[in-house]
């Protein structure tokens, strides 16, 4: 934790200097969205000032430059997630859009009445509702892999839940509500034994270390740019070429076609087949800059630092009287969900906010998980590599204040 150049890194993130209620902000809402380094902000600024032009179809110089940068960003994403080729990298509007794309398009091609889709009980709504909508449309069944008392998947249930009607598993790599890391490799292994493809929701894993979709051998992997230090409005769908080839187009429009006529339309090759209309090319290039930024810091360094931060914060929180931590697993990232005895999370959140500490309260878009624990919501503090022990200390002090006020 000590050789990590945390001071220099924090200098890269202008928002970390913000003042809230006359104190320096402690930003612990990273699972909701992350802050952006100047490298990303300046990329956007520069693109709009000096290079903006629509991609792919123009003959002009700027357009050519922009196309190169956009396709370069695709290559950066490919390298970052270790995909086999860049045709497997689709730019979307975000993780939610990516999952909806697969639910609709894969669903259209491969899900029939009576088939089953398996999700887990800890999924984010974005990895539940698209499957519910699909199952409604197709009269298919949504099945649920339950979690145990400390918020881990009940892996012993997996073999029972995988039937010959299971057509897809959609599971998150890291729980956004608790930080728990799921054994996705093992899930994928068991699924593939039965020829069942697996979609990994990487919205909370992409920002915390190495991702290798080929080693993991997942069939789909999705994430959002804004959660990995990139801009809003951009996300990624990785899909194995064999699936993407077999799937019908999702949205229709410019760029995703080969030829259009009223007597029949043919579609463009991958990845363009799934990128209808003018894409968020500025967003994609800025996402590329974000990934390059964290590659530059070093994913292993980030991982090591975050593990130390997780240990530190975990110990500090566990020593608070009357605290109940959800998902206190050994395998986790520094995301902490908890309740304080006799204090409503919302009251705590309001006071912490006044103390300059940005956390989140509520269900974290994971109502079924809350239902599992029999609660309405939690206080969630989610950290990443630009957070510090000192910030954890201020947070713990803040909790003390909360407890005094409502005690």
């Amino acid at each position: 934790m000590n050789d990590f150049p945390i001071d220099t890194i924090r200098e890269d993130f202008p928002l970390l200097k913000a003042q809230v209620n006359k104190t320096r902000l402690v930003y612990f809402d990273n699972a909701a969205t992350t802050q952006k380094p100047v490298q990303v902000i300046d990329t956007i600024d520069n693109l709009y000032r000096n290079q903006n032009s629509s991609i792919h179809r123009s003959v002009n110089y700027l357009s050519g430059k922009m196309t190169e940068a956009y396709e370069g960003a695709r290559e950066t994403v490919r390298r970052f997630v270790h995909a086999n080729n860049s045709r497997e990298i689709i730019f979307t509007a975000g993780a939610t859009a990516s999952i909806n794309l697969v639910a609709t398009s894969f669903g259209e091609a491969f899900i029939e009445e009576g088939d089953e889709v398996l999700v887990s009980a800890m999924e984010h709504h974005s990895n539940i509702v698209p499957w519910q909508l699909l199952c409604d449309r197709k009269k298919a069944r949504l099945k649920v892999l339950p979690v145990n008392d400390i918020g881990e998947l009940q892996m012993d249930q997996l073999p029972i839940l995988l039937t010959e009607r299971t057509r897809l598993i959609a599971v998150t790599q890291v729980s956004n509500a608790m930080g728990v890391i799921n054994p996705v490799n093992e899930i994928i292994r068991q699924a593939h034994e039965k020829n069942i493809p697996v979609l990994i929701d990487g919205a909370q894993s992409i920002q915390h270390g190495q991702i290798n979709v080929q080693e993991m051998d997942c069939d789909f992997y999705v994430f959002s740019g804004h959660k990995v230090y990139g801009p809003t409005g951009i996300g990624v769908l990785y899909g194995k070429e064999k699936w993407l080839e077999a799937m019908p187009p999702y949205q229709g429009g410019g760029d995703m076609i080969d030829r259009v006529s009223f007597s029949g339309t043919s579609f463009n090759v991958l990845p363009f087949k799934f990128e209808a209309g003018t894409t968020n090319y500025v967003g994609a290039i800025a996402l590329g800059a974000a990934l390059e930024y964290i590659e530059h810091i070093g994913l292993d360094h980030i991982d090591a630092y975050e593990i130390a931060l997780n240990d530190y914060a975990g110990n500090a929180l566990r020593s608070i009287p009357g605290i109940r931590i959800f998902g206190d697993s050994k395998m986790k990232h520094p995301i902490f969900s908890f309740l304080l005895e006799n204090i409503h999370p919302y009251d705590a959140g309001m006071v912490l906010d006044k103390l300059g500490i940005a956390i989140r309260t509520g269900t974290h878009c994971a109502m079924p998980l809350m239902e599992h624990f029999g609660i309405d919501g939690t206080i969630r503090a989610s950290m990443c590599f630009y957070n510090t022990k000192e910030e954890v200390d201020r947070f713990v002090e803040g909790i003390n204040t909360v407890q005094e006020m409502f005690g």
Partner: protein
Amino acid sequence: MTIHERELEVIEEFSDLDEWMDKYNYLIEMGRDIPALDTTCKTDQYLIQGCQSRVWLQAEFQSGKINYSADSDAIITKGIAALLIRVLNESTPDEILNADLEFIDTIGLKEHLSPTRSNGLVSMLKQMRYYALAYKTKSSN
């Protein structure tokens, strides 16, 4: 006392509270002071939409005047409800509908409850006015 006089009273009390901490503590006390709703009243019928914590609001109409009672699982929210009730209770529907409730801005309640949260405040007020309107229509029939 009229609604306006009670508003002035609240403004007066708040003027002594410089720090947000004091204001919050004041709200917490207000929240503790009003009686909890009977659990049988904490039903969906009385639940207010648009708050981040659950708020139940009830109203009774007697001798031409409305009396609200409220509860919330969050104590600050309950304090806000208590404050509104204190100002509006024992008033006629017309008085409630005509009140401009400037005290909310004056004491900085909205500002201290950042936008997403003041939605709760707004929803509570809206519901209180609905009740007033309903009773007004009822009594003029």
